[in-house]
């Protein structure tokens, strides 16, 4: 029983990442009708926003230790980050919480990148076939990840979680299991709560603001909305920026779980397309639901008991589910009628 509970928890954090990325992907697809293969690269860029923030915060003044020497016999270098020099304890706190500060950095940066991408490139592809959209964004994804590789190298760069959130919580006790049976890292709880907040934020934004209402109307019938004298293109551009920001912060928060490297975007991209397709193209609740569902399914299939019966199932379960869903329910779990039906 506790094993099952643990797997559900494990699935939740992976599912949160899937849901966040798939949400961004669906926002772009639902509003602009563009299949964005560069979306994984946006996730990766978000993760590297965290890396950059930490690099900036830990820029250090180097002083030489007068007494001690290193193994080469030279004076030992003492690195003191400037922020600590300037602000003392507050600086230490800033470095400790660099991941959370990176969110503040990532939101404007990613939104800007998204808007530039839409205005500069994707705008010209609205009237081109989907194959062209796929290809050009695929090319963009390669370019973005190679740029990151050129600057940061090919190796993963580990990012620590804040010290106060790096331990594990014996969450099993809260639910009446034995002590030490189900231990769950704090950061994953944070990630899950964060994802829940962001997702509900996006939904509330679309549901309860005038802007969101117009965007939803535009998703349903773009022509009519623009005939009413509303500049729907501008709103869609902003939605693209929003989607990029959502994906970016998903990447930022994911860095303490998996150290970011330049091709993490490609790895996530395929999975997230599968998630979107399973949820139903253009359906936001579908994307979120499918994200969590597939995340949990994936962690269940990684259990040893399951692998004993079906070896290797954990590697392919998501694709298998996607195939079955697409063949049995072509529209996906919650797909709307008339969206991308060929």
């Amino acid at each position: 029983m506790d094993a099952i509970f643990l797997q559900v928890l494990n699935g939740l954090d992976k599912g949160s990442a899937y849901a966040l990325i798939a949400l961004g992907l669906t926002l772009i697809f639902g509003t602009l009708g563009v299949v964005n293969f560069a979306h994984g690269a946006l996730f990766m860029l978000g993760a590297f926003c965290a890396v950059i923030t930490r690099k900036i915060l830990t820029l250090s003044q180097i002083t030489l230790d007068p007494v001690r020497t290193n193994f080469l016999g030279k004076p030992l270098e003492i690195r003191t980050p400037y922020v600590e020099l300037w602000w003392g304890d507050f600086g230490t706190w800033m470095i400790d919480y660099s991941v959370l500060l990176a969110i503040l950095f990532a939101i404007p940066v990613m939104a800007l990148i998204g808007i530039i991408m839409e205005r500069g490139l994707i705008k010209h592809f609205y009237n081109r076939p989907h194959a062209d959209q796929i290809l050009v964004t695929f090319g963009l994804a390669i370019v973005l990840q190679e740029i990151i590789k050129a600057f940061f190298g090919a190796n993963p760069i580990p990012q620590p979680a804040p010290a106060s959130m790096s331990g594990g919580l014996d969450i099993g006790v809260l639910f009446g299991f034995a002590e030490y049976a189900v231990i769950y890292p704090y950061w994953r709880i944070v990630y899950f709560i964060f994802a829940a907040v962001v997702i509900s934020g996006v939904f509330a934004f679309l549901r309860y603001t005038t802007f969101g209402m117009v965007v939803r109307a535009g998703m349903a019938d773009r022509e009519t909305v623009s005939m009413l004298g509303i500049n729907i293109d501008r709103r869609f551009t902003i939605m693209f920026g929003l989607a990029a920001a959502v994906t970016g912060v998903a990447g930022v928060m994911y860095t303490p779980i998996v150290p970011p490297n330049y091709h993490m975007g490609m790895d996530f991209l395929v999975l997230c397309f599968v998630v979107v397709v399973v949820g139903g193209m253009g359906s936001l609740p579908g994307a979120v639901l499918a994200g969590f569902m597939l995340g949990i399914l994936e962690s269940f299939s990684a259990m040893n008991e399951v692998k004993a019966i079906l070896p290797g199932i954990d590697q392919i379960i998501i694709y298998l589910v996607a195939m079955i869903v697409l063949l049995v329910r072509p529209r996906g779990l919650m797909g709307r009628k008339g969206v991308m039906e060929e």
Partner: protein
Amino acid sequence: MISKLKNNDKLLMIVFAILVLAGPIILAPFGAGYPDLLQRFAIFGILAVGYNILFGLTGYLSFGHAAFLGVGSYSTVWMFKLLTMNIIPGIILAVIMSGLFALLIGFITLRRSGIYFSILTLAFAQMSYSLAYSVLTPITNGETGLQLSLADARVLDPVNTSGSIPSTNLFGLEMNDTWRTTILGMDFQFNVGFYVSAFILIGMFYLSIRIFRSPFGLMLRAIKSNQNRLIYTGINTRPYTLAAFVISGMYAGLAGGLLASMDPLAGAERMQWTESGSIILMVILGGTGTLLGPVLGAGVIKYFEAIFSRINENVLHAWFDILPGFMENAMVWIVLPFVGKGWQLTLGLVFMLVVIFLPGGLMEGATRIGNWVMKLKNRGSADSTKTSAKTSAKSSDE
């Protein structure tokens, strides 16, 4: 065989065959005349021609062809291990296995079209890739890749006493045999493996011309331009798309088998979906739906891959030597990220530029330049002859 073609195609076929067979001579001055690269030209040419039959004719964008390439490689290496080092059984098995695999995948994925098809094939390719790395390790040898060893059975071959692994051959002609000669200070290398691949490429190119010109090819084009209308007229399009998918999968398997024949090892990284992306790249760059384009695209990409990857900082410094010091360093600093290990970046950029500005690829570019030259000529005024001479020089450069 050639008499079944129309005159234009006959000419194309003959010119193509001559160009391919003379490859080692033509490409030697460009620094591309060495066997390894020539073999890759021919093999990836086959791959691109095959992919074009699916994507160029039916418009179905498959991200799964790397899987067929991998299946082909694995089957061939297994034949080398079990039966004989002769490449014939290996290649035949590669084609059959990838055909069966394509039949299975196509049967499922072709129920959907458009981007759903792309994503389904993507899912299948990723699935085969993951499986090759994990559960199928007894067949694929996981991360190490499938390699030959002395202990392999090779039941048809005579007992091996030499103590080294025999090389792949075609009835005794060894694939890595190279006949070298030097004419006018130029080094020419005629490699058996290249000529085997080249003859197969020519055969496959002929097959692709025949498919393009056949009623079957016409039907595939009809599917691309308007599948719904075909369905409404009462035609079941599935068998046609499935046939195209299987044929192009078999081409990929053949290419995989040939790759393994030239260098007998097979690894799972060949099956990753980004590999499929690079196949698409070749076809797009050359010109989707044209006969010659894919071969051209494959050649251009493999050529620049080989050239660009070799350039390093020292080479760049030598290039920009004539510039003053600070400009030399600046130029090196600008160019360096795009060459050597940064080749992928250049590739991605070129790919984007081609999709944005030249969706028809190099073939469309050639046509455009040709039309432009014709227009200038037709104007017939005296001063235009000068410019047209310039442009024709330019077009021949490209």
